[in-house]
């Protein structure tokens, strides 16, 4: 279970907070399925519900390799006021978030998003590359984007004592993401790109707190996006549900 918020600010755009609640279920060791409820609040404007999405992730290979591919498929039913900015594709721009909520929410987006996620572990560094393709099912062409990231625990070996604030519980990293145009116009021009240092704090009880500040690199990017997220893993959820009905 993971509530998340992204706060965006840049010139000419009202500061906004996009939020989403993520419910993820590990159906199999190789398959996870997620459901998201999304909304946003914009200063000098309003607070609106913006839709839902559902996704599946499939780990393709049974064993660890240098590159471990995961196939990702998502269906989203959201409106134009959505400001969760979970990914950037095509020519996504900060101007998309300048439209008033009342007007933006009139646009309905039913989209399918696919990703090839390649993950590698190298000397305690986790490196991940995402190739993103998104298509509005009603109109338009395929839009593409990318996300890359690397992270590492601040301490590799665990200490003997139980601890919350020790370095082994922290991961630090760097992410970069952005759009790469469309099927007919693959380009980096007029697209938005970000670079974001990230920190994750893993509590011994299965709760993780994440924060990242993304800095816009192009004129189409927001100046800054600050992301917060808390996730809590409920172990053996299926067994707990069975016990409720006994």
């Amino acid at each position, binding site marked *: 279970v993971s509530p998340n918020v992204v706060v965006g600010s840049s010139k000419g755009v009202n500061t906004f907070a996009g939020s989403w609640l993520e419910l993820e279920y*590990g159906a*199999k*060791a*190789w*398959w996870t399925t997620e459901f998201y409820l999304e909304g946003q609040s914009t200063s000098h404007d309003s607070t609106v519900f913006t839709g839902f999405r559902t996704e*599946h992730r*499939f*780990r*393709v*290979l*049974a*064993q*660890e390799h240098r590159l*471990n591919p995961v*196939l990702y*498929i998502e*269906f989203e039913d959201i409106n134009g006021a959505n400001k969760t900015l979970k990914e950037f594709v095509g020519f996504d721009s900060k101007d998309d978030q300048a439209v008033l909520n009342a007007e933006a929410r009139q646009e309905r987006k039913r989209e*399918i998003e*696919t990703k090839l996620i390649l993950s590698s*572990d190298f000397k*305690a560094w*986790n490196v991940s590359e995402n190739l993103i393709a998104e298509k509005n*099912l009603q109109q338009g062409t395929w839009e593409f984007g990318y996300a890359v990231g690397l992270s590492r*625990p601040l301490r*590799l*070996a*665990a*200490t*003997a*004592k*139980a601890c919350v604030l020790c370095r*082994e519980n922290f991961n630090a990293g760097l992410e970069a993401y952005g759009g790469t145009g469309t099927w007919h116009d693959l380009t980096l021009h007029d697209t938005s790109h970000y670079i974001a240092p990230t920190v994750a704090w893993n509590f*011994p009880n299965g709760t993780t707190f994440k924060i990242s500040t993304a800095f816009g690199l192009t004129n189409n990017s927001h100046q800054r996006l600050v992301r917060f997220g808390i996730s809590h893993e409920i*172990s*053996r959820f299926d*067994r707990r549900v069975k016990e409720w009905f006994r």
Partner: protein
Amino acid sequence: MKPAVKAFLFTVLTSWTIVSGSASQCDSLTLLRQAPTKAQAQKNVYKGNGEALLAGKKLFLRHCAECHGEDSKGTEDAPSLQSAAIRSAPPGALVWFLKNGNLRRGMPSWSRLPEQQLWQIVTHLQQ
């Protein structure tokens, strides 16, 4: 059939075929014996290290006990780890197995943990 439905079915079937095919019907002990020679030959530098033993127990309780039980004697979801096969297995093979998991049988991959922590868990399991 709509393209979106086709894409979804294709993804599910392809993933299932690859995962089930490459994992075959191997049980965990068979997989352990199939660990690469290089992995099997690795020595546990934490062997006999009291600090690592305690750290391994802490990590076991955090990541493994939910399925294998706090006493590692197993539950209805996962087998006991208090067996001669585990205690006598090459420690490098156990680390290799933790990294890979046995996805077909529900054992996840723990490659996201640093290798040092995997060795600490193995130190605890083989005490």
